[in-house]
């Protein structure tokens, strides 16, 4: 079943995230490949950003911008693969989904805080080169921001057969 973009935007987030068109992303191996792709993309983007700052090279900054659509695709696919657990409103999720989501945010809180604190200390308090600071801060930001979603995608069990 195909939809126009207009029809897709008319759907609620819950409908989009539970749409059968994303069934390809919902098995565990695919979810884990998406997580690996996200981490690789985040590290690549952070490296390009750091190099562009360190070398003052606009081409590298352009390459960083070229990667941006990849983020939209992979983050969207990861969200759809977990049926939008991290972005649908609480009152649109069932009890099991809410419990899994909240528990994962708690599990991810301290690792994310440690990653961000280390990156901020490095960026604000040390004399390492600006490019390295920028790259590490950007990488930490990408990882910490999406940590609950990628952790859910990695750990959720296989959905039961319909």
């Amino acid at each position, binding site marked *: 079943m195909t939809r126009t973009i207009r029809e897709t935007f008319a759907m609620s987030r819950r409908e989009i995230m539970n749409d059968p068109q994303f069934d390809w992303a919902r098995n565990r191996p695919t979810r884990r490949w998406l997580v690996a792709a996200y981490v690789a993309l985040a590290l690549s983007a952070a490296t390009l950003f750091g190099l562009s700052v360190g070398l003052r090279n606009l081409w590298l900054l352009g390459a960083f911008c070229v990667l941006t659509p990849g983020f939209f695709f992979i983050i969207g696919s990861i969200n759809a693969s977990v049926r939008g657990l991290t972005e649908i409103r609480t009152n649109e999720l069932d009890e099991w989904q809410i*419990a899994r*989501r*909240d*528990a994962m*945010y*708690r599990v*991810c*809180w301290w690792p*994310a*805080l440690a990653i*961000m*604190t280390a990156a*901020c*200390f490095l960026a*604000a*308090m040390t004399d390492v080169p600006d490019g390295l600071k920028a790259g590490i801060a950007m990488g930490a*930001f990408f990882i*910490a*921001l999406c940590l*609950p979603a990628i952790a859910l995608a990695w750990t959720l069990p296989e959905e039961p057969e319909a």
Partner: protein
Amino acid sequence: MTATLVRPAPSRLTRRTRRLIVVGAAAASLAALACVALLPPGSLAVSIAKLTAALGSLIGFGVVMTRSSVWFLGNAPDTALDERERTIRDRAYFKAYGVFAGLAIVTAFYMLDLGPDLGLWVPTNYDAWWAIVWGFVMLGLGLPAGFVAWDLPDPVPDFEP
């Protein structure tokens, strides 16, 4: 850390009082950070402000971490809590994550783009950066327990025959 501590007695504070304390603590922290970041470095005033902020943070966290049932609820291991308490705690972390991530994005956008473009204040010296980084660390330590304090319902009054 909380696994080795004795569970404090349940809080007798009403929700309204707890919320006032959370708002007061946040306002005091912001005021201390503003003093450290904005006062001229090296002055007596900034030294006193730094010392007060550091002592206030240490004593405040020391008291809260050892005596507060709200802190215990926010940081205790699963085995020390019942299902209702785990639900409240996990929801507090969900909210805290959203607030913290939102603040980080807004702060980064302000410091990298908006502040310099509009000629607004941005951190330039070591003291200002120190204040901001420590502000986020303190926020990270206290925010989940703050949301637990905010969300917990009023205590059930004692039964009087």
